[in-house]
């Protein structure tokens, strides 16, 4: 008998625990009438500069408390998606640009257009607005952008007597670019002339430069199996066939940025955001940024982050206030200077003071402001995350000589259509 009572008791405890937790959840949501406002802000990766600015905001607005939750980028999407699916979307999200469209298309985001003046709207750069704008509606504010850049070792170039291009209009074409790489490599007796890292986004600028793209123009099907795209893949393969680029670095068993920092690599194609790391770590030689080559057009791939708000937020006023604070000309230029990234507002680009990297940042900003819109559209979508893996594995097969560029392009097309776009 006693046992029976005990087991009943256990069931009772369990049930009451469930009920109590359900109630406490309800209480939390009815608290909105209070003066004190608490915001949940989910941020991808650890960004101390952003946290610092949020703290300043809290100090200036005593009734608003912001709880920042940091999620590393490689777990970002699975965690955020799970939260949204479980009705636990945050108030604000600091997200890589490509995810913005996904949430906007699912009608989850707060439209910010009514809260922005015409001047403010115009101040944001058109190329960065591509990822947040849908007709009249604006689903987020671009916070910063970055790009795939070309950095070079000034000492090695000087020794080889090779000059880098003076301006965007007079940049190398593809052939001149590889010849320069070869010349510097030979003159310095190095193993390599130019390399990318293992992130396939570092190949994309060259795809776009040849007027190629991963998806077709209206983004309804793959666009990679086209002569322009295949030609770009073919040319990329010649980097390796001519012994200029490191297969290991592209496949990921060694790190191109380490080789560059050690002075073993004259040119590296990598994220522009690495400029700060290079600036801090490189002591033995001078380095700089220069213009990527051009073929049909000049192009690079942009990155960066947007701040978006979920429309179910109970504190839209506070949310908009924080978003505008973080994207104000002053805060944005401070942030960009500290991180070595590019502001998304024209006024902030003018105001930003990069200090010792100012010259290089000018080149990077010049490139960012001249990216063709078809390229921006190609990577500013959530499918980017899905097709990236396909490009990676197929390009690796091409580089290793296991597949021809045509075969790889065909396989990319197949996978993108069936699995990424679900045709």
């Amino acid at each position, binding site marked *: 008998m006693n046992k029976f009572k005990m*087991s009943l008791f256990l069931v009772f405890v369990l049930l009451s625990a469930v009920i109590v937790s359900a109630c406490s959840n309800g209480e939390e949501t009815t608290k909105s009438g209070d003066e004190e406002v608490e915001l949940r802000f989910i941020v991808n990766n650890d960004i101390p500069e952003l946290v610092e600015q949020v703290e300043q905001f809290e100090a200036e607005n005593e009734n608003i408390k912001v709880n920042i939750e940091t999620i590393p980028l490689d777990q970002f999407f699975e965690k955020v998606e799970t939260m949204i699916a479980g009705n636990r979307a945050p108030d604000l999200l600091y997200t890589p640009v490509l995810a913005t469209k996904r949430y906007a298309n699912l009608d989850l985001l707060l439209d910010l257009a009514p809260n922005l003046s015409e001047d403010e709207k115009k101040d944001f750069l058109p190329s960065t607005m591509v990822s947040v704008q849908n007709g009249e509606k604006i689903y987020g504010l671009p916070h910063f952008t970055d790009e795939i850049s070309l950095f070079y070792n000034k000492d090695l170039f000087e020794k080889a007597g090779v000059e880098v291009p003076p301006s965007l209009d007079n940049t190398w074409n593809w052939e001149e670019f590889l010849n320069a790489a070869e010349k510097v490599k030979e003159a310095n007796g190095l193993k390599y002339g130019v390399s990318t890292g293992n992130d396939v986004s570092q190949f994309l600028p060259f795809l776009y430069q040849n007027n190629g793209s991963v998806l077709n123009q209206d983004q309804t099907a793959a666009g990679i199996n086209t002569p322009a795209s295949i030609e770009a893949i073919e040319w990329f393969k010649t980097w390796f066939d001519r012994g200029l680029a490191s297969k290991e670095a592209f496949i990921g068993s*060694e790190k191109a940025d380490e080789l560059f920092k050690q002075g073993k690599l004259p040119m590296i194609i990598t994220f522009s955001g690495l400029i700060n790391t290079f600036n801090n770590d490189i002591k033995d030689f001078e380095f700089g940024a220069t213009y990527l080559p051009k073929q049909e057009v000049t192009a690079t791939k942009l990155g960066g982050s947007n701040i978006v708000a979920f429309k179910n937020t109970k504190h839209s006023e506070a949310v908009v206030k924080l978003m505008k604070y973080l994207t104000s000309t002053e805060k944005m230029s401070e942030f960009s200077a500290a991180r070595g990234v590019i502001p998304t507002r024209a006024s902030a680009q003018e105001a930003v003071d990069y200090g010792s990297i100012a010259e290089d940042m000018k080149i990077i900003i010049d490139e960012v402001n001249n990216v063709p819109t078809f390229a921006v559209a190609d990577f500013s979508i959530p499918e980017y995350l899905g097709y990236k893996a396909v490009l990676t594995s197929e390009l*690796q097969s091409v580089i290793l000589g296991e597949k021809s560029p045509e075969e790889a392009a065909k396989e990319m097309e197949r996978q993108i259509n069936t*699995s990424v776009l679900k045709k």
Partner: protein
Amino acid sequence: MDAVKSIKLQDKSEKTIARKIKWKKRLIPFGFLSPVLVIFSLFMFIPVVFALYMSFHQWGMIGNPEFVGIENYVRLLQDPLFWISVKNTIIFSLSVPFKVGIALFIAVLLNQKIKGLAFFRAAFFFPVVLSMVVVGLIWQWMFSPSYGFVNFMLEKLGLPLQSMLIDSKQAMIVLIIVSIWKGLGSNLLLFLAGLQSIPRSVYEAAEIDGANSWQKFWHITVPLLKPTTLFVLIITLIGSFKIFDLAYVITGGGPGTSTMVLVHYIYQEAFQRFNMGYASAAAYVFFIILFILTLIQMRMFKSDAS
């Protein structure tokens, strides 16, 4: 008449009381089990059933699932990449007999009375406590072509340098080597426990009969270790089918698709392409494969034993 009636009544009420007690007795265990049952249902049973339901739908995690029948399964079986990932998983799993064999061999050695036994046991067990990601990063560095330890040693020995991680045919070998190193300790522990449960008297009897070490190993150790071996084999095989983190960190599935394994394929569909329904279907096919393999193994050992 009354007496008979009352007896009947009494009988009836006794029966109901007995039934009541019987019911209570049956319910008691469930009461005590309820916390576990709730947790199990919430985190295991419901998701497993939900995944089965999802596998017949197209679902992007957010929004409403759309019923598609067996389309996910059909598409899955037609996807060459799926078959590549199955093939790679099987190739990786072919290392299981080696893993078990090596563990058994070292366990027998460590079961002797040798000096520094505790040190050796600890040394072999050490990799088990490391996290998979740490192990992956360390070994990626070890095999790195220009600054890795393996090439450094090869260079010192005057041997040709390797770049196994950028070779589609050899990258899998690296994964196998690393997984042997990482998993050895736990198998070793199981074998050691099994070895110690074999009574000394059996060996002594064999010695009196004039059996040599090899005969003792083959005719005593191996048969008596059979239950342990079966257990280790099944656990290792299931573990090797579940390989993901190691491949994800060291090779990222490359070069090309040469180390793309099943779980990686499922992960990619679910969390990079948000095809939750399709990924669920793949997970169910994965489950069926594992189920059949385990069944075959158990059968094999049963018929062997009889």
